[in-house]
């Protein structure tokens, strides 16, 4: 089962796709989110969001600055103030 991942900035929606796992730089440490993660909310620090499209695939790295991540039954949404692509 894939995890639905959304990355949104104030200017636009950067990503909205189904992925395997995402590693988010939380304020109190990095955390990986897989499908079926318990509801969770955390602020994020400036860092790299790693997106694993499939199990074992190389990570795609996205620089983000400021914001927070929310895990709900609909998947993971990262609301970042700024994204470097």
């Amino acid at each position, binding site marked *: 089962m894939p995890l639905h991942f959304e990355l949104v900035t104030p200017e636009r929606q950067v990503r909205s796709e189904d992925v395997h796992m995402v590693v988010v730089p939380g304020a*109190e440490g990095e955390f990986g989110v897989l499908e079926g993660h318990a509801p969770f909310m955390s*602020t994020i620090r400036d860092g790299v969001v790693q997106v694993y499209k499939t199990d074992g695939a190389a990570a795609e790295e996205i620089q983000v600055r400021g914001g*927070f991540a929310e895990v709900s039954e609909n998947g993971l949404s990262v609301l970042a103030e700024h994204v470097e692509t």
Partner: protein
Amino acid sequence: MASLKELKDRIGSVKSTQKITKAKQMVAAAKLRKAQAAAEAARPYAERLGAVMASLAGKVSGDSAPKLLAGTGSDKRHLLVVVNTDKGLCGGLNANVVKEAKKQAQKLIAEGKDVVFYLVGKKGRAPIKRDYAGSIEKHFDTSTVKNPGFEEAAAVADELIALFEDGKFDVAHLIYPTFQSALVQNPTTTQLIPVPAPEGSESAGDAVVEYEPGEEEILEELLPRYVKTQVFGALLEIGASEQGASMTAMDNATRNAGDLINKLTIQYNRSRQAAITTELIEIIAGAEAL
């Protein structure tokens, strides 16, 4: 009666005015599409933030709520954040925003409150200064950048929050036009600070959500972001409204110029005919006399 030459010059000048207004109209139409797309693209973020705010604000209420949410406890001093455009040529847009701002100011003053203005955009400065010269707190200049974006919004919001934390005001309202269509841009007033508790969307099954670091810390970080997003939304709205209003105004101007040209051309042709007729009569009379 104007001479033929004068009429001809007049027609020429109206024609070039029409060219300018037509060009401006087309530019505005293109820019409007872009501005609308930008407003559209900003919606997911604002919606998410609103939903998260709603679920958090419900949990963290009462005494522990941050000041940005709970307010200072008084509502004596009001700050009106008025968002205007930097350029003219957009019909009554700025006049309407200023009118709304003055209406709100009068209402608040009548209730015995103090009113201070914080102006964004160039075009609101002069008309508000005329009536409330002493109470303009600050003027934020957005004319240096082409399209005010999130950075400008963040700068405005940071400044507002700093003023709030210094205790310069108790309540802030945001006044800006909401874009409904190219014809309609209604000025609206929303409360910015203290952040009004968002309503609804509390239902979503509320499973136990874990918070990291904690609910209050997250809320505290979220509130300034929410203010920024609100200001950003206003900047996007003013962008779309400006282009929409400009398009309509220029369309009218082009049409007016067309009407004027028609009228002048008829007048020109009539006087040309009259001149020819008089000339002919003169020639015939001269020939007959021989």
